[in-house]
């Protein structure tokens, strides 16, 4: 098995944080699939977001069809309840009292949760990295919007690359971005470990809705494998922020979760206006990007692609992903046999 085969990558990604829901969507238990695992996401009575396995250990009732109760989440089938933080069973209504509980109290698996960027993040195994807190927004007062998630039949790395690609603007986004130059200027890339960053100058395009706010400096900052961000800097016009974190449902299936925020100094519209504008841009991507082949970035080198200098950000992103996978494999002892390649 190659170091970067599909199976090796999926195994490594169990140690990375991914989004499983929007913060606004979990007042009732909500089903999610991450790396092939069935999960349920809900907000418990204390307001804490929780992620656990989806199916009850008793007879497989679907907790996503259950409800939040004082002691966690209640299975719709026999009413067993589970604590969202520990996964421990907190109630079996069919038993007269807790002393009759089975000696090894049953539990479902519960996962760590972080709520950030208006989304719910989890990690299936011991996390290799912290969920990033990008330094460039630490001093900005942001008004967040979580966009409607976009399911796509491609891998999450391919979706992340789309967000970091500038050479498709002129073709995919002529509608929103207007007559933008197809030429991608030379870029200075900074890569260190799993982070890749660059800045491009995006001059206003006459008559285009996307750049009607004026010239901007776009600061890209990517954290491999799956968090990509752009801080838009309009000078005196203020700042806005765009984040993209496609979540792997399976090797060739993802849900593109993304969010948009306006800074308190932003002078060109509300957070809702910008969300609507960026939604148009994403809607232009979906029909094109969801049909690419291969469906995921071929890190195993089995498909020959051609690259050019305009791909420099995504090529560095791939390298950063490999760095992530190398580090996870080393730390958790996932040895790939090179002889079997």
């Amino acid at each position, binding site marked *: 098995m190659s170091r970067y085969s599909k199976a090796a990558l999926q195994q490594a990604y169990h140690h990375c944080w991914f989004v499983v829901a929007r913060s606004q969507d979990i007042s009732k238990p909500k089903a999610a699939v991450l790396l092939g695992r069935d999960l349920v996401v809900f907000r418990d009575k204390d307001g804490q977001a929780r992620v656990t396995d989806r199916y009850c250990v008793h007879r497989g009732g679907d907790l996503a069809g259950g409800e939040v109760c004082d002691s966690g989440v209640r299975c719709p089938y026999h009413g067993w309840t589970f604590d969202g933080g520990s996964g421990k069973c907190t109630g079996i209504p069919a038993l007269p009292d807790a002393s009759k509980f089975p000696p090894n109290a049953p539990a479902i698996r519960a996962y760590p949760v972080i709520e950030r960027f208006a989304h719910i993040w989890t990690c299936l195994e011991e996390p290799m990295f912290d969920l990033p807190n990008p330094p460039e927004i630490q001093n900005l007062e942001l008004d967040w919007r979580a966009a409607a998630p976009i399911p796509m039949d491609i891998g999450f790395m391919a979706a992340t690359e789309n967000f970091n690609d500038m050479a498709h603007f002129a073709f995919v986004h002529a509608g929103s971005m207007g007559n933008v130059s197809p030429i991608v200027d*030379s870029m200075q890339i900074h890569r260190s470990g799993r982070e890749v960053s660059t800045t491009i100058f995006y001059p206003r395009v006459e008559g285009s809705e996307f750049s009607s706010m004026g010239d901007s400096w776009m600061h890209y900052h990517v954290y491999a494998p799956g968090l990509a961000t752009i801080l838009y800097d309009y000078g005196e016009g203020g700042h806005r922020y765009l984040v993209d974190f496609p979540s792997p449902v399976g090797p060739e299936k993802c849900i593109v979760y993304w969010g948009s925020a306006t800074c308190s100094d932003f002078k060109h519209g509300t957070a809702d206006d910008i969300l609507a504008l960026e939604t148009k841009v994403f809607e232009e991507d979906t029909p094109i990007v969801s049909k690419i082949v291969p469906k995921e970035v071929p890190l195993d080198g089995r498909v020959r692609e051609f690259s050019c*200098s305009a791909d420099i950000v995504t090529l560095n992103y791939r390298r950063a992903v490999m760095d992530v996978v190398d580090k996870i494999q080393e730390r958790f002892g996932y040895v790939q046999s090179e002889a079997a390649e």
Partner: protein
Amino acid sequence: MSDTDLRLRVDCLRREANQVISLTLTDPKGGRLPDWEPGAHIKLRLPSGLMRQYSLYARGSDGSQYRIAVKEAEGGRGGSREIHSRLKLGDVLNVSPPVNHFRLEPGQDYIFIAGGIGITPILPMAEAVSDRSSWHLYYAGKSLASMGLLDEVRRLPQANVTLAPAEIGKLNIGEIVRQAKPGAQIYCCGPNRMLDELAALCGERHDIALRVERFAASTSAAPVNGGASDKPFEVVMKRSGRRIVIPAGSTILTELLNVDPSVPHSCCQGICGVCETKVIEGVVDHRDTLLTEEERQTKNTMMICCSRARSDVLVLDI
């Protein structure tokens, strides 16, 4: 940016002409800055992260300053815009040490031609030869009001200087080239139109030398093959024991493909990483733009499409 970068403070911002400002950069600790020769440029990393290169035109009397002049380019790539509208006194920037690709060669007779902000590398050249060689400076621009560094230009011996603002009349480059003495060297920095015209005219004069510098040199993905100055070296393919010679002007990949057409490769420019190959022995001359400095030092791999050898032999894991 690398470890050798300087951290310099913007100590003076001065309006020099319409759309032209000058910057004085100094070491906040008061140190002397690395020396440079006329024609040298520095690379600035602006607060936004953009990288831009600018020619140096003055060093300050004690060598503690770098001075550059920047024209606000309409329809530019955002660098000059940022310098003009957003840079402040006291900002500290990462600055690469000076590099010179436009060196003034020894000679007897110089013709300097500057178009607009192209005066910046040309001015220190004229100053350097002003008291010893035969020389003349032609400085063209849209109008006197738009031509930067005129104070400095006026301090040169005025008999050797021709100012040519377009409002008075267009510089007759054809005449300058025709009248150049045999053996003369022409140095020109200006808009592409001017450089192209000059190159065409000088093509008919084999007895004079032309050296030019263009605006807007790109900062990355530069051509990776050095060409003429490359030396041949030998590659040993560890797995088969085969040895092949890589001549100057060729690459390891090109020569390997003659032996094995299935060698993985893609961009052939050192950006994609597909041809990354493990190095067992030898010193690599890395010319790719993908590997970080840290990776170059720790990973022992190379991109065989463009990187070469510093040692006579490279042993590769192929």
